[in-house]
């Protein structure tokens, strides 16, 4: 079976119930081929549960999922032939060396001349920069080295899908930088589905993001769309300087009376006043908003622009809304 519509992962109402909690509720996800899909959520949101269901390590309580067109429950071994996986806290046989770990992993996928398998292993070691530590038992590896070995073993079969569970969580800034660089390097060869709670990393490398909270999917969108604003509404960030309060009040009155303006919030800082105007019609706002303000010539517009969110703001807003329900 081959993929359809270039979707690598599809889940339909996927759920997982434990006696003490519902870990996952009717999750519907689609991951397109060659995307770097960031799967975000606070701790305990259900990210690892989802990943483990996709890999057949745990069974869903309801719903279904397919990877590369194969059912995750029925065709799990077939899926794992074309998938690479790095666990959140990767564990290996501690007495084995990096070379042995990778050789052992490679033999799950291939057989053939020993030197060719060795060449594959060497290629992976070089890819993650572990070529000088090949014959050391992994029990002596640092967190960063383990993580890099994890990426190498996940990539040993050149998978069509790479699933990484918190790949940079336990790393220092340098280690995180290295892991993200490897992910970016791999993007042209494979689809990457990775979970994380490090928003900065997601913003840096992901093209699509899903946010999970308490087992529920609360957002899924291309990252640009998500950063542009939530739910189709658009925010403008305006900084004004005015000699009189009356001028500001008048301008405010003119703006909020428009049908395409959802709300206007004000913060004042010394002599400057900052407005955040949420609108529903971007084109009209682009055309009229600044004109409405400048009807009063005494007002001085210091800054006018579409607000660009950072992922942290989007994440906190969405998760906060969800938690307050």
């Amino acid at each position: 079976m081959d993929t359809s519509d270039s979707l690598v992962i599809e889940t339909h109402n996927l759920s997982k119930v434990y006696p003490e909690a519902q870990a996952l509720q009717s999750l519907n996800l689609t991951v397109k081929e060659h995307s770097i899909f960031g799967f975000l959520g606070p701790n305990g949101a259900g990210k690892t549960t989802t990943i483990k269901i996709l890999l057949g390590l745990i069974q869903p309580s309801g719903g279904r999922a397919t990877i590369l067109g194969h059912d995750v429950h029925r065709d799990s071994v077939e899926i794992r032939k074309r998938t690479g996986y790095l666990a959140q806290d990767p564990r290996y046989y501690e007495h084995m060396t990096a070379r042995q770990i990778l050789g052992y992993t490679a033999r799950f996928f291939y057989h053939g001349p020993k030197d060719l398998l060795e060449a594959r292993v060497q290629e992976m070691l070089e890819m993650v920069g572990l070529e000088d530590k090949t014959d050391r038992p992994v029990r002596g590896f640092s967190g960063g080295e383990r993580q890099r070995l994890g990426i190498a073993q996940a990539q040993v079969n050149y998978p069509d899908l790479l699933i990484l569970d918190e790949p940079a969580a336990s790393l220092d800034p340098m280690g995180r930088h290295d892991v993200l660089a490897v992910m970016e390097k791999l993007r042209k060869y494979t689809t990457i589905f990775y979970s994380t709670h490090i928003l900065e990393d997601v913003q840096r490398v992901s093209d699509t993001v899903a946010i999970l909270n308490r087992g529920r999917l609360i957002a899924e969108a291309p990252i640009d769309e998500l950063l542009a604003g939530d739910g189709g509404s658009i925010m403008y960030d305006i900084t004004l300087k005015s000699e009189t309060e009356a001028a500001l009040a008048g301008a405010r009155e003119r703006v909020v009376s428009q049908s395409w303006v959802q709300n206007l919030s004000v913060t004042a800082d010394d002599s400057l006043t900052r407005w955040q105007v949420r609108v529903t019609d971007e084109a009209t706002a682009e055309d009229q908003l600044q004109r409405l303000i400048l009807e009063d010539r005494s007002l001085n517009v210091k800054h006018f622009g579409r607000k660009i969110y950072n992922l942290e703001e989007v994440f906190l807003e969405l998760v906060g809304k969800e938690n307050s329900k």
Partner: protein
Amino acid sequence: MTVQTHPHVSRDLRLAARQGLLPARGGGWLAGFGNMFAKELGEWFRTRRWLWQLLIWLIILNGFVAFLLFGLPALATIYPELKPDAEGIFPGLPPEVGATYMYFSIVVMTGTLGAIILAQDEIIQEKQSGTAAWILSKPAARQAFILTKLLSNAIGVLVFIVAIPGLILLGEIFLATHKVQSLAPFLAGVGLVWLALFFYISMVIMLGVLFESRGPVLGIAFGVMFGGMILRNYIPQILYVLPLSMESIALMVVQGMPLPAMFISQVIATAVLSVVFLLVALWRFQHVEL
């Protein structure tokens, strides 16, 4: 090397084929079996474990028999007060039969303890450490995972606890009595002893699948072993189903004696229960969350 590719073959296999590598053999419930089995056997034979196991069992089993066959009689020549002990080692039995019975008795007792201890961590450790989840995120079948654990331990125990000490026992008997034991009945007896150990390995593997900690695994396995040894005095019927007198059965087989119904039942029940334990382990492990 010419390798044909197919449009539906995934990219990784095409890349590998170009490099001369072919997809791993074995699918379905045997997926990954060869690789895992080689690794598990390697734990026995390519690490120092083989040396330690060899030394331990040679000392315990053959050392003890050697002491009875050679050491004690030699000491009795130096210390005459030991002579009655030396002559009464195998009361009413020829030395070759006595030595064989002694070997079977010790191997069933200490070998069972050894087999339980060696196998108890096989599944629990992998579940607790997360290595099972790592392995089973690769194209490896859960059934193959269990089978490799069972078979590697069964082979390790066969080689180091049963076969090598058994062969050395034959040499010891020859040196002491200048008599050559018939090989076929001896091997049949040794096979029965191994069956008793296999029963416990199979049980411990199953318990490792069913429980999440070592306590219940060791508790139940030792409970069956020691509890059975006590209970057989009060409820002899348990000898129909549990391998609690396999040393006697093995000796009777070696001597070519006919087996009573109770013993025949014990052998059959031991084999059947071993398979049942394996089937339960295979079935249950399919549903274990890793």
